[in-house]
């Protein structure tokens, strides 16, 4: 007869210690702290009321900001306030706002990556905006102090695509012949954080266009994409689809919109 070993006090102590060690290792290994406020050596939390005295522009409408809905893990911070992202502000306030005593996420995206870890991965893909090398910052495109962090959600006043066309003026138009996809937003075809495809496209070939322009195949055919499969046209695109992307040479070279052709040719 085999008897189980007794669960002694020593076993429980060391078992608990082992679990605690695994938890700590797990937290460090993923290199992120879920909704925990940033830290500054030697500084303590003083609350957002101190920040308002000098930074009223940034704090006045924060209650309407997307990030105002976050719940924080550290009870010392209380409500999600400035110090959740900028770190404890005691040294900064005592020094009259001296530089280098507070975390500025505009200088580094690491504060944002604490939660948005997937974006760090996307910015590391071959085709991405220059956030990782400091040419751009998250706040260049996202409003973090008021309203929606992503423009044109809900019922914002800002125009669709306004975030992108501030820099990409050539794609803004207006064009004589506008591609309807522009009304779906730039993100219908591009992932602005980064993709493996050129120009941050979400698909590298004709499949990008077929996401909207594919209709049901002709049941009488062999199942190949046929004349009826391409929305808005009666032309047979069988061989053309095999040649390359829809926007390649000799075809629809102006996918954002054209001033010369209703078919978005150049």
């Amino acid at each position, binding site marked *: 007869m085999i008897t189980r*070993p007794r669960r002694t006090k020593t076993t429980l102590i060391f078992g608990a210690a082992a679990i605690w060690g695994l938890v700590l290792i797990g937290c460090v290994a993923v290199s992120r702290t879920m909704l925990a406020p940033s830290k500054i050596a030697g500084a303590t939390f003083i609350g957002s009321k101190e920040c308002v005295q000098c930074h009223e522009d940034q704090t006045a409408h924060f209650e*309407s900001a997307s990030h*105002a809905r976050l719940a924080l893990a550290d009870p010392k911070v209380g409500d999600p306030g400035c110090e959740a992202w900028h770190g404890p502000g005691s040294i900064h306030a005592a020094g009259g706002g001296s530089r280098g005593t507070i975390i500025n996420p505009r200088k580094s995206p690491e504060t944002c990556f604490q939660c948005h870890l997937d974006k760090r991965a996307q910015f590391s893909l071959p085709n991405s905006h220059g956030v990782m090398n400091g040419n751009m910052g998250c706040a260049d495109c996202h409003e973090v102090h008021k309203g929606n962090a992503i423009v044109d959600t809900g019922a914002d006043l800002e125009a669709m695509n306004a975030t992108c066309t501030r820099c990409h003026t050539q794609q803004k138009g207006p064009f004589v012949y506008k591609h309807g996809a522009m009304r779906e937003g730039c993100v219908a075809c591009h992932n602005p954080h980064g993709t493996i495809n050129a120009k941050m496209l979400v698909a590298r070939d004709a499949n990008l266009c077929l996401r909207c322009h594919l209709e049901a195949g002709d049941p009488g055919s062999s199942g190949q994409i046929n004349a009826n499969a391409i929305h808005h046209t009666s032309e047979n695109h069988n061989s053309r689809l095999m040649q390359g992307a829809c926007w390649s040479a000799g075809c629809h070279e102006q996918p954002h919109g054209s001033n010369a052709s209703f078919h978005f040719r150049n």
Partner: protein
Amino acid sequence: MKANLHNLTRTTRFSAGTLLLCTGLLAHGAEKAPATDALPLFESYIKVTGQAAAISGDKAVFESRAKQPGNGGAGIEDLHIVKELSKTTTGTMDARALTGPDDYLGRYNLTKVGVGSVDFGFKRFRTFYDGVGGFFPTNNQWLPLNDQSLHIDRSKAWLEAKVALKDMPEFEVRYTNELRSGQKDSTIWGDSSQTGLAFNLAPNPVSPVRKFIPSYLQVNERHEALEASVKHTVGKTALKLTLLGDRTNNNDTRYVIRFPGEVIPWSIASLSTTTPAGQIASPQNIAKASAPATSWNNQVTIAENDAMRTATNGLFATADTIINDKLTLRFGANYEPVHTDIGGGRPLVTSAPTATGVLPVATDNYAGLYGGTRVKDYAGNVALDFKASKTFFVKLALRAQSEFIRGSSGYNVSDTRNWFHDGVYLSARRDEGHGISARVPGRRLPQLEELYHWRIDRLDAQQDGLCATEG
């Protein structure tokens, strides 16, 4: 035996527990390490840096991926000087100068507490591109781009002035001038028949032509914006009025090669007597009509020029009224007329076989693109923010937009047929959106957002095209 097993497992658990505890304590200690750089403790400082890369693969790919120059660079990474000019006035200067990535920054800010500030500066950096085209694995074809230095320099100069006197309207003026110039890769890839595919693969009419020849885009763009705003609080209402003048002047050209190195043999073309009805016989058409299908391509070089000037004027107004601690009412409206002038052309040069050799022939091109677009855009929204409790926030919002667009364009086509095209496209669009969103920032309640979002997008468009043929 049982005791031995017990002792063994107990010893193992003891060792594992001790190891994990030590590792955990070390990890916990590592987490407490200071997260900030020691250098920013200085009010004024300078950082000098240098970098170099040892590249074993493609240099252009490295530059594109790493967003750094393959030849390295050095210079001042960060210069920061702060000077207290008086008890209430502070001057701050920031600078950066890195050769290689052409990364430069110069900025000066002068702030007087209770009066306002002036901020001006210049910023420039470079982005790199590798110029790789499509890849065709069947024939292991990967054609490199012509020897072009592919990078875009982006620069920005700005001047901003702000006057914020106590209990007075706050004025702000900002002017920016942004430039983009250089060459970058394009995904408008050219064609090639050198794929190794047979012309016809029964039963499908598969062409051997594939588009994977790299091309590049010459960019020359300017964007200027002048923005003036006034902000004032009357009672519980914060009012803001903004005037915007925005100008763009873009002149881009895309260079594409189709069927590089391919040409129809003159001996075949010279045997042809076919003349397509209504067209003047060209060596290219004659050759196409008589040559074997596998030789139906001649090299074509294309320079697609696309020019556009845009003038946008905007008027934006917002009013935020704090009704009480829980309710805030927000209004917003804008009016934005846009005026665009266009230009450009698409010259094609074909390598045509003749009795005396292969000659370049301009064919099937257009030039003198003219016309433009006029837009009038009206938009408005109203929103009610309701903070029911410390952990519950609801936003109700409505938005409406009307956009009227009128565009027209025309161009000349001067190939062997000499025809002329003039098209006019008119459209009027009405875009309406309604949305209700709720946000719950609490820890216990589920986080909800955009409970409801509805948008109507109506497009009333008409197109009127005219295509005339001249002799």
